[in-house]
């Protein structure tokens, strides 16, 4: 048996009453790619934060390279040869690659000297690991995939033998992700150990040697990747059988409910975010917009839902034509029968310091049924909130509880409850399951399909390709503000969509 790069024994960590890690043990063999998989809130990130010195475990032991090690800070972790690539990059946007790598390791009086030393070292690393990046490029001019490469270089430069990657593919196209996995393979061949944290089963199956599954703070299984399969892992993650495919009848699209014509949007910084986009969404149909985040989907959604002004183009909702609005007008859009589940529930969909019953009326607070002549009808609001919470399985179903005290999945269900219960004609849904546990994902997906079957037009925007593929009847792919192509879900091919997401049109490919 090979040596272990990391061995964690009986790690416990509590936050107040919440047990984030309970008797977690983990052995990562040296020179392997080890996947850690689990739902959001399963304790993966806490465990890695303990390993990287952000948190101190309440009890338990850590051994690095078979030596018992105490890790009290990120500094200790780096000294022990552990490097981390965070989900959100820790780079100074306006610095060059070289400056970012030097940052924190500069020695001596003259910066120039460390720069030169680092430059030589970086060139060596880039060659050894095939991690080509222009070291004089400024970070914010680099695409995300390359920024991530810089993070990896940074860790390697600091002498990391063990590399932890936290949800590394969240911001990447499938092609970029594949490239990342090739890099990880390269690293493994050179003797590095890689820990990959993710909730995507596909990545685990494609890249890892071993996989550990976490559920509710506990380590529930260790498997050799070659001896397991997606279904087993999913079941271990959730603790019960999961339907990997959403059941749905074929769509029977009706008349157009939403028609967007030549929509163009330029943001406050003069960047043209949406470029001449036209499409329509019919009744009884789910249209999915796929794309890597930041390619204009959010702006498109904001214009359609009245949050951002309609500068150019035309929107038709159930026969009403809107040609321009100076400022956005989300209230008017709601009056046309549009409901909107926003991408960011924390900042947009909820006022987290308000109670559930005050959140359930957000955007509908002028509704006559909620209001008496002057004051609002509090009793009625609380009652109907309670009813909606029961209907959409929001737990706990306490209308007086502050929104921030619900878990991510339940917050999202609260938003979904508010928007779906309104019986809208058109439903615009953004990232409906971001940061939501699998149980809630299933529930929300079923609700979206139920809305379609009830004859509603649904526009779904998501960066999760799996979600788009399993829910949509028609798929539009956005890249750089444009719609690259339209594909019927029944003949969708992941590779083809991936290429469109990366901006490669069919003719060119």
């Amino acid at each position: 048996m090979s040596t272990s790069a990391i061995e964690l024994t009986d790690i416990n960590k509590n936050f107040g009453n919440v047990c984030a890690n309970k008797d977690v043990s983990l052995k990562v063999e040296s020179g392997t790619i080890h996947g850690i998989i689990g739902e959001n809130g399963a304790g993966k990130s806490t465990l890695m934060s303990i390993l990287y010195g952000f948190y101190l475990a309440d009890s338990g032991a850590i051994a690095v390279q078979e030596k018992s090690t105490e890790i009290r800070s990120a500094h200790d972790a780096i000294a022990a040869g552990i490097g981390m690539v965070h989900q959100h990059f820790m780079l100074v946007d306006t610095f060059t690659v070289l400056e970012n790598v030097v940052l924190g390791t500069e020695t001596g009086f003259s910066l120039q000297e460390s720069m030169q030393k680092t430059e030589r070292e970086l060139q060596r690393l880039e060659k050894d690991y095939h991690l080509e990046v222009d070291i004089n490029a400024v970070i914010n001019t680099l695409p995300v995939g390359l920024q991530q490469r810089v993070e990896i270089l940074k860790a390697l430069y600091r002498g990391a033998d063990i590399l932890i990657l936290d949800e590394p593919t969240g911001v990447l196209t499938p092609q970029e992700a594949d490239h990342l996995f090739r890099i990880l393979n390269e690293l493994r061949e050179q003797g590095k150990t890689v820990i990959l944290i993710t909730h995507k089963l596909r990545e685990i199956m494609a890249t890892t040697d071993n996989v550990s599954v976490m559920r509710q703070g506990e380590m529930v299984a260790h498997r050799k990747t070659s001896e397991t399969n997606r279904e087993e892992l999913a079941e271990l993650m959730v603790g019960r059988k999961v339907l990997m495919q959403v059941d749905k009848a074929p769509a029977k699209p009706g008349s157009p409910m939403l028609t967007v014509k030549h929509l163009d949007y330029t943001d406050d910084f003069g960047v043209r975010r949406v470029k001449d986009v036209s499409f329509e969404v019919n009744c009884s149909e789910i249209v999915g917009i796929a794309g890597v985040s930041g390619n204009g989907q959010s702006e498109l959604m904001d214009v359609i839902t009245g949050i951002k002004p309609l500068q150019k183009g035309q929107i038709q909702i159930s026969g009403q034509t809107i040609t321009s609005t100076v400022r956005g007008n989300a209230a008017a859009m709601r009056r046309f029968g549009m409901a909107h589940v926003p991408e960011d529930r924390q900042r947009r969909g909820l006022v987290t310091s308000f109670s559930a019953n005050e959140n359930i009326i957000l955007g509908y607070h002028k509704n006559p049924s909620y209001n008496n002549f002057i004051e609002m009808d509090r009793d009625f609001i609380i009652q109907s909130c309670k009813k909606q919470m029961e209907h959409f399985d929001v737990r706990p179903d306490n209308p007086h509880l502050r929104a921030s005290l619900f878990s991510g999945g339940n917050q999202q269900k609260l938003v979904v409850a508010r928007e779906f219960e309104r019986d809208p004609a058109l439903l615009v849904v953004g990232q409906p399951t971001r940061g939501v546990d699998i149980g809630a994902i299933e529930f929300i997906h079923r609700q979206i399909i139920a809305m379609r079957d009830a004859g509603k037009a649904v526009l779904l925007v998501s960066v999760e390709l799996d979600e788009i593929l399993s829910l949509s009847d028609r798929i539009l792919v956005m890249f750089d503000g444009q719609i690259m192509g339209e594909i019927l879900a029944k003949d969708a091919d992941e590779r083809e969509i991936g290429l469109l997401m990366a901006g490669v049109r069919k003719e060119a490919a």
Partner: protein
Amino acid sequence: MNERRTETLVVTLVTVTNLLIAFFISGVVIWALGEDPWFALKTLLYGAFGYDEGLGYTLYYTTNFIFTGLAFAIGFHCGLFNIGAEGQAYIGGLGVGLICLWLEDWSLWLVFPLAVLTSIILGGIWGAIPGYFKAKHGSHEVVTTIMFNFIASVIMVNILSHVLRPPKEMSPESREFAEGVWIPQMHEIFDWFGINITQTPLNGTFFFALICLVLVWRFIWYTRWGYEIRTVGTNDTAAVYAGISVSRNIILAMVVCGGLAGFVGINEIMGSSHRIMLNFQAGIGFTGIAVSLIGRNHPLGILLAALLFGILYQGGAELSFEVQAIDRHLVVLIQGLVILFAGALENLFWPQIEYFVKQLARQ
């Protein structure tokens, strides 16, 4: 114990603790000056409550602080830091005075509502202009409202010395208006019921202030307008998502702020001095900020904090009169300590008290 009650308990304990510390340090200062802190405290409390005249003055000051405290609170709930209550009270008060001078032959029952309305309109305009700049151009309300305090001050000096000053009078103030539009003073009101109390500036406006407390409470937490204001104040991105106009609510909140601040004029001009005077609002607007912050921007808290500052004003005056070593500057020091601990350093003991209460709640 549910979450809401725990929170209320924490807030109350934190405020009380901070006040006690402020008083303790004041006591140490008094002791260092060679005076007896206990005697000082007794004098202060006696001066504020001990006899009907003292109580009258205390409540008279309290009335003013309720108005400006509420004026600050409404803005605060909309995410604004309105430090312009001073100027808004000044201009609103001008409106009150002008109505009284103009309609002095009318019945009080007609003049009072008109005075309230004028105060809302003028004070409201004075709040709305900075509100407009904030909403449409992003000018920070702290800067603009304080500028508007100065502008109000200059305008008032001009109007009082050039327009409203009766010929041959030396001081820059208007003439006294007819007795018919004076708000009855408290001793007169008590007199109707055959109770005899000493005459003080305390007048019927006190009851109006209490009504305002209740109205503001209902407005903020029970109406859709209050809901919109709170949404804008807590999360303006969510407000835009919900179709709530951020700029309209900022302007609306500032109008309400200005209107409430203007009611100081009703207490001061219609209720007490019966003429428009220079600087009748001096300091009341600024104290309102402290009142609202200590009272956690809640009407009930504002009532208690306004009372506290009423006590400090009236009791403090008594204290500097009675005790040799304590002059009015020391009274200002005590007020300053209260603001420092209960306002600025409010989070000093927060974690400890919260922990304590949570432990208590668990048992």
